[in-house]
């Protein structure tokens, strides 16, 4: 699930989880991984560790399964391995028998001279398409498979939903967990639903296609606020917005949200709040104007002259290069919105606060 900030990815995943649970016979896990671990230092294996802990708990609490003592002992051992994989362990090394201290380049050179040999890497001709699975990832496979086998006696399909991976604005980290964690889950026939950062679609020089690693990629683009598209209005109506908003103000809020669902909801809420603190009986055009200005000013703050030029060029000529890193930044910060792979537009709230003098200059 790929989409910009505030496009409704979490809502979609929660709905998917709810649907999966209703199907019966399946075992579904939902993790917002950014709540579980510090993603800025995310390690490959973190997703497997979280899934392993959840699976371990489910299996050990499956009351309907009767197990022989020997199997219970074996499961206890596997459970310990998963916990150690997740939380680490203390190991004791005998320093008198193992010399695994790092050697300086002088010591390595001395060893080579004394032993009359030279160490060098000779690359092979067949490069593997993907990096090999790390040794620790391979080691956790056995306990996970054991628990999965037991879980599958009671549940036909195992699905794990990972939210929060879209926060990894640097796509390199995302790919490292795809190549390790998600690959092993696929090999173990566990279905995965995950969010991904927008940069995997537009990032320059990423050189990897997300569709090569997932059976299906769902791009959650922003919703056009065209008159014939009533989706945005229906979001406001569902939240009883029509009780406080005239049709004209509701249309203005839909338009200035740019189709970003979170912006739509906060503009409507802020307009109501503005009307309340200003002692207005209902939301006025001035209330909407004020909150649009606030939102636009937020997007404008920190925007340099070059970026402003790019935005105004996009507005006038509709041209936007997605392989330029600075332009990807504009997409990630929601200053530019993607309506389709060929339709990019400046966020309307931002456009409304770019000084007219700047606009005339382009």
């Amino acid at each position: 699930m790929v989409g910009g900030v505030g496009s409704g990815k979490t809502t979609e995943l929660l709905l998917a989880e709810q649907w999966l649970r209703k199907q019966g016979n399946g075992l579904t896990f939902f993790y917002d991984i950014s709540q579980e671990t510090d993603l800025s230092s995310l390690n490959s294996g973190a997703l497997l560790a979280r899934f392993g802990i959840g699976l371990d708990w489910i299996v050990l609490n499956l009351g309907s399964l009767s197990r022989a003592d020997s199997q219970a002992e074996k499961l206890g051992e596997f459970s310990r391995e998963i916990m150690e994989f997740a939380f680490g362990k203390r190991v004791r090394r005998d320093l008198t028998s193992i010399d695994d201290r790092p050697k300086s380049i002088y010591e390595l050179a001395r060893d080579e001279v004394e032993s009359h040999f030279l160490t060098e890497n000779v690359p092979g001709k067949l490069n593997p398409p993907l990096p090999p699975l790390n040794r620790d990832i391979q080691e956790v496979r056995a306990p996970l498979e054991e628990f999965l086998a037991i879980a599958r006696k009671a549940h036909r399909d195992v699905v794990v939903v990972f939210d929060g991976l879209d926060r990894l604005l640097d796509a390199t980290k995302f790919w490292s967990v795809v190549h390790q964690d998600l690959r092993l889950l696929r090999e173990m026939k566990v279905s995965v639903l995950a969010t991904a950062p927008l940069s995997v679609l537009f990032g320059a020089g990423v050189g990897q296609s997300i569709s090569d690693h997932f059976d299906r990629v769902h791009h959650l683009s922003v919703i056009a606020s065209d008159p014939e598209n009533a989706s945005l209005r229906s979001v406001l109506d569902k939240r009883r917005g029509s009780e406080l908003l005239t049709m004209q103000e509701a249309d203005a809020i839909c338009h200035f949200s740019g189709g970003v669902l979170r912006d739509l909801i906060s503009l409507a809420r802020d307009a109501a709040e503005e009307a309340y603190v200003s002692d207005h009986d209902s939301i006025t055009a001035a209330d909407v104007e004020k909150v649009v200005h606030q939102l636009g000013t937020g997007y404008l703050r920190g925007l340099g002259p070059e970026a402003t030029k790019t935005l105004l060029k996009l507005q006038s000529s509709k041209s936007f290069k997605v392989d330029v890193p600075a332009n990807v930044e504009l997409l990630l910060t929601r200053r530019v919105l993607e309506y389709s792979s060929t339709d990019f537009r400046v966020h309307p709230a931002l456009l409304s606060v770019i000084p007219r003098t700047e606009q005339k200059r382009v």
Partner: protein
Amino acid sequence: MSEFSTEPFFEIARRLEIRGETGWVAVLTPATDSSASLDQLQTELQSVLQKPARVIQLETSTFEELREALHQPDGDAVILSGGTGLTLEKWRSLDIMRSALERKGPVILWLSPGDVAHLIEHAPNIRSFIGGSIFLAGPDRGIMTETERQERLKELSQHFGFSGAEAVRKAQARELPHEPEFVEWLVLLGRGDLL
């Protein structure tokens, strides 16, 4: 350059009160006397929201410390202070952990103008939660002329259908609801001690 809306602390607290339990806003620190202003914001939040308000320093908190501090307890108001400024790395890290920052009670980011620019540029996930709720700490509108004060007192009296003296009596008898308008009324009557 467009500017953010200027709001006194009382209005910011009132906005959070309207939103109910959850709410995210960012407040730009004033150029001078930032520490006293922070104390004032904390007091206003406690008074209007009728719940404790804590200040947590972002700069010195690790991921684990911040997560724990925000959730134990998770219903009070929390002011996350950026202090003199946060590094870009810290902003990126905070943005990544946004879900871990989500809590029941309101979150107020107390930031220098430079940090607001960093928030917008390097923390799009947090910025998205804040939306347009970025305010400049403004002067308290309590500094009104005597005519304005009298006018407002008259409005409040007409709206609620009883006099200022009656409002004081009710407050003394603890019969006055903790509504923002009553807080304002007592302050305008010079009886903030009854809050």
